[in-house]
């Protein structure tokens, strides 16, 4: 494999791993916990280094992952006191642990060659330089293998606990009564998030970990309500951001991780604005259309309700109907024009009367609209 392909493969592995666990993270409204963990693992790495004294040891990853879980635990502990809100608890714990990490790194900078900038910002371009050599044979970049293991771990976890995850995400109470411990799911998921973050941030930096964990699932959430589809779409969006990010970064010769995060944002913006039915444009448009549609049906229902009653002449008279619809005059005229245009109603003796077609249309739509639940 050439370095180009290697970098992209690593990025894709990271994207998929992060998007997978990220889906459950954002559904549980814990997106910012990912942000917190991506910061606090620095302290975990530093502390683990003090014990192991080897910067290349894979045990560092475990130390960092433990720190991620400790972060979750500390936040939960503060939460339980009910003295502060959950968001404040997160915002209290992670800068604290992160600061401790930075202080340790700076004070013992001589003994740790840990570049805080590199940790936080990451540089994917250097990933291929760190090779895995077994028996003197170079079998590829180390990150690639680490991320492969992490990806398998993510897939296994979600495949094994899919039912429990789904249940405890959407109905904590039910999950508990059915005997699935929400606490177990919570901590196992957060441990997975920690491990994934640590492994990934070694390869791509903290900020891209957060971008991949929260971004693609959020975009997918915008597109679908179905959990399975959301997982697949999330993976897809992750891969798209990774590949496009790589090529854009190469083109402009800028940071790969940063560009991938930027691509997540661009993808988000495109989906958010343009996606049919749910996008910004579609809802803006449909809000206006809805107003006309509802008004149209309202007018027809108004005719249905008053046709043949003693007040018909007043309520449905072409000159007096405006006084009973309470719309702006221009709007009323427009709606009446539309109704006449579509042959839903006709004018007889200066009274608005509904046609068979109009009756059918009004009633079927009325049921359709109100019967949505």
């Amino acid at each position, binding site marked *: 494999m050439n370095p180009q392909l290697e970098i992209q493969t690593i990025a894709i592995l990271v994207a998929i791993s992060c998007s997978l666990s990220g889906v459950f993270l954002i559904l549980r409204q814990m997106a910012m916990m990912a942000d917190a963990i991506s910061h606090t693992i620095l302290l975990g790495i530093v502390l683990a280094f003090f014990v192991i004294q080897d910067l290349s040891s894979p045990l560092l990853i475990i130390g960092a992952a433990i720190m991620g879980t400790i972060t979750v635990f500390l936040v939960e502990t503060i939460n339980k006191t009910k003295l502060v809100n959950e968001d404040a608890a997160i915002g209290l714990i992670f800068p604290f642990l992160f600061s401790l990490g930075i202080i340790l790194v700076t004070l013992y900078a001589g003994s740790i060659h840990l570049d805080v900038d590199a940790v936080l910002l990451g540089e994917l371009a250097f990933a291929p330089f760190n090779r895995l050599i077994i028996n003197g044979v170079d079998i590829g970049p180390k990150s690639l293998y680490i991320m492969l293991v992490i990806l398998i771990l993510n897939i296994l976890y979600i495949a094994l606990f899919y039912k429990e995850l789904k249940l405890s995400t959407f109905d904590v109470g039910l999950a508990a009564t059915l005997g699935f411990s929400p606490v177990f799911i919570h901590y196992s998921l957060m441990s997975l998030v920690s491990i994934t973050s640590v492994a990934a941030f070694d390869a791509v930096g903290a900020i891209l970990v957060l971008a991949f964990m929260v971004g693609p699932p959020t975009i997918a959430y915008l597109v679908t309500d179905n959990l399975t589809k959301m997982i697949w779409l999330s993976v897809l969006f992750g891969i798209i951001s990774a590949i496009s990010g790589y090529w854009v970064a190469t083109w402009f010769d800028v940071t790969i991780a940063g560009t991938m995060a930027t691509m997540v944002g661009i993808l988000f913006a495109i989906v958010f604005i343009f996606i049919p039915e749910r996008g910004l444009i579609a809802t803006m448009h449909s809000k206006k259309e809805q107003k006309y549609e509802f008004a149209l049906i309202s007018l027809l229902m108004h005719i249905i309700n008053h046709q043949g009653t003693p007040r018909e002449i007043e309520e449905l008279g072409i000159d007096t109907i405006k006084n009973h619809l*309470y719309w702006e005059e221009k709007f009323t005229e427009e709606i009446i024009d539309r109704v006449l245009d579509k042959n839903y109603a006709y004018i007889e003796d200066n009274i608005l009367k509904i046609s068979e077609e109009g009756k059918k249309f009004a009633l079927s739509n009325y049921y359709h609209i109100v019967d949505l*639940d």
Partner: protein
Amino acid sequence: MKNYVVNVNDMTVVYHKKPVLWDIDLQIPSGILMAIVGPNGAGKSTLIKAMLGLVKPVTGKVTFWGESYESQRKRIGYVPQRGSVDWDFPTDVLDVVTMGTYGQLGWIKRPGEKERELAIQAIEKVDMLPFANRQISQLSGGQQQRVFLARALVQDADIYFMDEPFQGVDAKTEKAIIKLLEELKNRGKTVVVVHHDLQTVPEYFDWVTLLNRVVIESGPVEKVFTDENLRKTYRSTSENLYRKRDVM
């Protein structure tokens, strides 16, 4: 014809493309104690919020005394659901009740001795004087509701909207609240209450609106609050539409 305080015409409220309220026509006469009753999800709170401009309707018009809501808002009092605020907010009973005067004060001007006096009076009215300086998180559910009620009293409005004021309060507070509402009515005020306890409707209220996304019926309790109408209200929404077909 009676003079109406509130006039709602053809109001439709849509949330995420689903109509929560459909084609609401509602007249609220002056000087009544009215309950809005209906099943969960019937749009009771939404109806109040739409009347008060918190939710924007897709179509329709609401007038208060024939005028727009904005021009009349100083005559309108509101008691939100107790759960809608954070009771751990650092403030005390007197402070919350004083908030009822903010509307009259307008921008920037601070409440003074006069406003304090009004607030104290209202607190006394709801039997909370010994708690005036208490932090609001240390109040029971019933006491919190009394605080909100006192805040609305301070507004000195002509019509009051209350969203589930009996939710989670003890029997004693419930009695006290209803006594207060009757007193307001006797002073010629109009009170509109979102209510969920069907059994107490005839005892507490003289006017009722049965709502299930559409207004099933609205009028004096003895005329409207019938088994037949209640069945209509509490059956599924789709069935309700046959009402319209009957007319044809």
